[in-house]
Every structure is written in structure tokens, then in C-alpha cells.
């Protein structure tokens, strides 16, 4: 129930957008969260954008062109006397010098768009994504493969602004029938160096301060207590010794007096 409602609103939105501004749109973020990445940009395929130019009984194809934004000053023309431009990624130095052809695919079916509710279905997911989205920069190998003859769609440059354009081609006659505007500027992600990550913890936690300070105080008190008890014992010992000595000397005196024939001096008083 809910999913069909979502699909319905999405289709309405799609129609609305197509009517107002015909520009390639970046894929919705709820569908493709990881977009754009460093080297790829995922676009929505041009649903219902070329409806007015389509005639039955003719075959059509859509070309996707990409260029760096800086290149628009040099050349942003993709039609050469009603023929589509044929420059490749290498020829334009990755879009720096002008638009290059990034992809060729069938015109998306406006009448029966893929059901976005099927995204949750593992078996249908890749089909829905394929029909609905196109990922610029998806092919990491074609540049280095000498046997690759198709349209090469190699990774884009990071931290660079790109623009995209769809073109409708009549494949029977080889003539461009329609085109969208250049898309809004889309910037690939910037990368940061992990070296610059600061791992310093900053302020100390209260735990650490409490534990350290209290323990230091306790240790100090313990040592002080130990010293106090040792000194008190030592004092007691010396006091004991002195009293013993005194006793001894007293005894000696008494003994002396006795030996001299005097028993207790007090007796004489």
C-alpha cells in the first residue's frame, strides 16, 4: 500500500521535473547514499525527458556526455551538424578539453518505470538499479584494455566539478533529435589524508583526575603514617632504653652503697 503510493508520487515528481527543467539529475540520496564518490557520479536516467521527440516505429538511443566544468569555456558543443560528437575520454583528457561520450543506452521506458519498491528485493535490485540509474566512472579497466572497443566510462578525477548532458539519437538515421541542458555542477568528493587526523584526546576525563589526585593524597598520608608510627616506636624504644639505663644505674648505686656498708641512704636521715 505504502510502497505503491511512493511509486506514484515519484512518478508524479518525475513528470513535473521533466516538464520544467530538462537537466540530468543526480540520483536521489535515499536510493544511492554513496553519491558522488571520489571518482564516480550516479545519475538518474532520463525518464520521460524525451517523450515529445519520440516517434513510434523508430529506434532511439540515449548518449550521455560528461565534461569538467572548466571545459565549458572551451567547448560545450556535443552536436556536430546534427551528428553526435564522437570524442572519447582520452581525447578530451577526461573532460578537461570538452565533453566526451560516456555512455550509450536505450531510452528508458516512461510508461513503465521500474518499481522503486522492488529495491528491497535482492533478486530485482540489480535490475531496478540498471534501469533507473547510470554510474559515470564505473569502469576501471577499459582504459587499460587494448581490446576494449565500446564506449569507455573510466573513473573521474576526485575533487573536480563535472557537468552532464543527455542526447537523444535516432539510430536509424544517425541524427540527434533532442538534448537536455547541461546538468548543474556536480562535484566529486575530496579526499583527506589520514596523516592529518588528530588523535590527541584533548581534555582529561573527570575519572582520571579524581583517581590520580585522591590516590596521590592517600599514598602521601600512608607514608606519613608509616613515618609517624616508626618514629613513635623509635621514641618509645629510646625512652625505654633510658629508663632501663636509669634503673640500672640506680641499682648500681644501691649496690655500691651496699658494698660500702651503707644499706639505704634514706635510713640515715
Amino acid at each position, binding site marked *: 500500500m505504502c510502497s505503491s503510493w511512493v511509486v506514484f508520487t515519484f512518478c508524479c515528481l518525475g513528470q513535473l521535473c521533466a516538464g520544467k527543467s530538462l537537466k540530468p539529475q543526480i*540520483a536521489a540520496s*535515499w*536510493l*544511492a*547514499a*554513496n*553519491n558522488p*564518490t*571520489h*571518482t*564516480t557520479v*550516479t545519475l538518474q536516467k532520463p525518464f520521460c525527458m524525451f517523450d515529445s521527440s519520440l516517434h513510434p516505429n523508430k529506434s532511439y538511443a540515449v548518449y550521455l556526455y560528461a565534461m569538467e566544468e572548466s571545459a565549458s569555456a572551451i567547448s560545450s558543443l556535443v552536436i556536430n551538424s546534427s551528428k553526435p560528437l564522437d570524442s572519447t575520454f582520452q581525447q578530451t583528457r577526461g573532460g578537461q578539453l570538452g565533453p566526451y561520450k560516456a555512455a550509450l543506452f536505450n531510452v528508458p521506458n516512461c510508461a513503465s518505470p521500474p518499481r522503486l519498491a522492488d*529495491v*528491497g528485493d*535482492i533478486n530485482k*535490485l*540489480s535490475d531496478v*538499479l*540498471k534501469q533507473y*540509474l547510470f*554510474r559515470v*566512472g*564505473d*569502469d*576501471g579497466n577499459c582504459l587499460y584494455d587494448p581490446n576494449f572497443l565500446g564506449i569507455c566510462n573510466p*573513473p573521474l578525477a*576526485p575533487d573536480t566539478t563535472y557537468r552532464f548532458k543527455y542526447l537523444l539519437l535516432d539510430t536509424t538515421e544517425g541524427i540527434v533529435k533532442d538534448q537536455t541542458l547541461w546538468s548543474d555542477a556536480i562535484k566529486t*568528493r575530496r*579526499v*583527506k*589524508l*589520514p*596523516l592529518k*587526523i*588528530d*588523535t590527541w*584526546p*584533548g581534555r*582529561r*576525563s573527570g*575519572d*582520571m583526575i579524581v*583517581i*590520580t589526585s*585522591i*590516590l596521590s593524597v*592517600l*599514598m602521601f*598520608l*600512608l*607514608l606519613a*603514617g*608509616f613515618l*609517624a*608510627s*616508626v618514629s*613513635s*616506636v623509635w621514641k*618509645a624504644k629510646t625512652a*625505654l632504653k633510658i629508663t632501663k639505663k636509669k634503673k640500672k644505674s640506680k641499682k648500681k648505686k644501691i649496690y655500691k652503697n651496699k658494698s660500702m656498708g651503707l644499706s639505704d641512704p634514706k635510713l640515715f636521715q
Partner: protein
Amino acid sequence: MAKSDGIRILQGLLVFGNVVIGMCGIALTAECIFFVSDPHGLYPLLEATENDDIYAAAWIGIFVGFALFVLSILGIIGVIKSNRTLLLVYIILMLITYAFEMASCITAATHRDFLTPNLFLKQMLERYKKSEPDNNNDKWMIDGVTDTWDKIMVQNQCCGVHGPSDWQEYTSAFRATHNDADYPWPRNCCVLDDQGSPTSVDGCKLGVPGYYNSNGCYDAISGPVNTQAWGVAWFGFAILCWTFFVLLGTMFFWSRIDY
């Protein structure tokens, strides 16, 4: 007569205090052994950050716990027999043990602060699947970090430290060997099926909800380590507070023993 009654009460208290110290010692040893045995397999991560002093604290805790247990027995005997020499030995050894436990406690508390997300983030980016180790030790750490991360991400169904975007925001050793178009993040960030392969590589690459793990692993890493370190620190602290009073009492008792 009154004085000897007081001494008897003090003796009883000290024996009780030492019994508690002995039991706490065993508990501390047990706790620290649990920590050191690394039940969550997180040690390689801490080792690679060169910040494994928390484990050092736990090792000290093991020995201190045992020492406390043995010393408490010595203390009980000394107090009951009122033997001066025995008690002096007890006090001195206890002070040394006290200092060690203090070190363990403070180390654990301090290093809990160092377990910041950025610490793990940096290490993950610099070491995960790094292809060219500098030396054998480095290779050892890289393998440890890689295996641990692979395991954590699968077990906890998480990705990166804060989330998969970690792999997008920063360059990494992983990025040097895995291009962004095919591996925006490691495959273990994808939702895996029973065979351990991604349910949908395309969905995972694009970040379609439900096909990649969008939450970060920081909680899964720091949670256990933090709790255990917290235990070592605060339990050690509690033992030290208790021991403080017992030791003071013992010193008083020691200085009041008659010949």
C-alpha cells in the same frame, strides 16, 4: 583492662579488613585475567596504535591482586600473633604493592581517555589491507589490524569507525590498492549472505539502504575495552581506599604492641 579491650577490637577489625583485602585481591586478579585474555579479540587494534598500556595495567593488576591475597594472609597472622617483625614486613610489602596498584589504576584511567574514535580511524586507514609493509613488525601489525577489522565489521554488522563514509572522506592504504569505483568501501561493509559474499555488490557500492552497514564500529570496539578498563581502574581504586584504612590501622596497631 580497658586498653587491652580496645586492642582486641582493633585486632578484630584488622583481621576483618585483611580478609576483605584478600578476597578483593582474588577478584582483581580474576578481572584482570579476563581483560588480558581479550575475549573480544581487540588487542591487535590497541597494539597497532602503540597504546596498549591498558593491557599493561591489567597485567600489573593480576600480580597485585595475587600479592594482596598473599599479604592479607601474612597480615592476619601478624595481627593475631601481634608479632612486630612480621607486621613490619607486612607494612613495607603492602606499601610497595600499594604503589604498584596505584600505577595500574592510574594507567587504566588515563588510557581510557586515549581511546578516541580518531585513534582507531587513523590506524584503520593507515593499516587496513596495506600492501607494502615496512618491516616484519609492521607486517605483523597490518595482518592483525586487517583480520580484526574484517572480523569486527562482519560480527557487529558495522563499517569503519564512524560509518562507511570514513572510507570516502579519507584516502587510505586500502584505497591505494582498491579503486573507488569498485570498492568505495571494503566488501565486509556490505550486508553479507550466509556464504559470506555481499547480497548485492551493486547495491552496496551505490549505498542503497539495506545493502550496506551504515553504522560505525566505534561502539563495538571502545565499548568492551572501555568497560574493562573502567573496571580495572575503579575496582583498583576501591581496593586502594579500603587498604588505606587497613594499613593505617595496622601501623597504629604495630606502634602500640607491647614487648
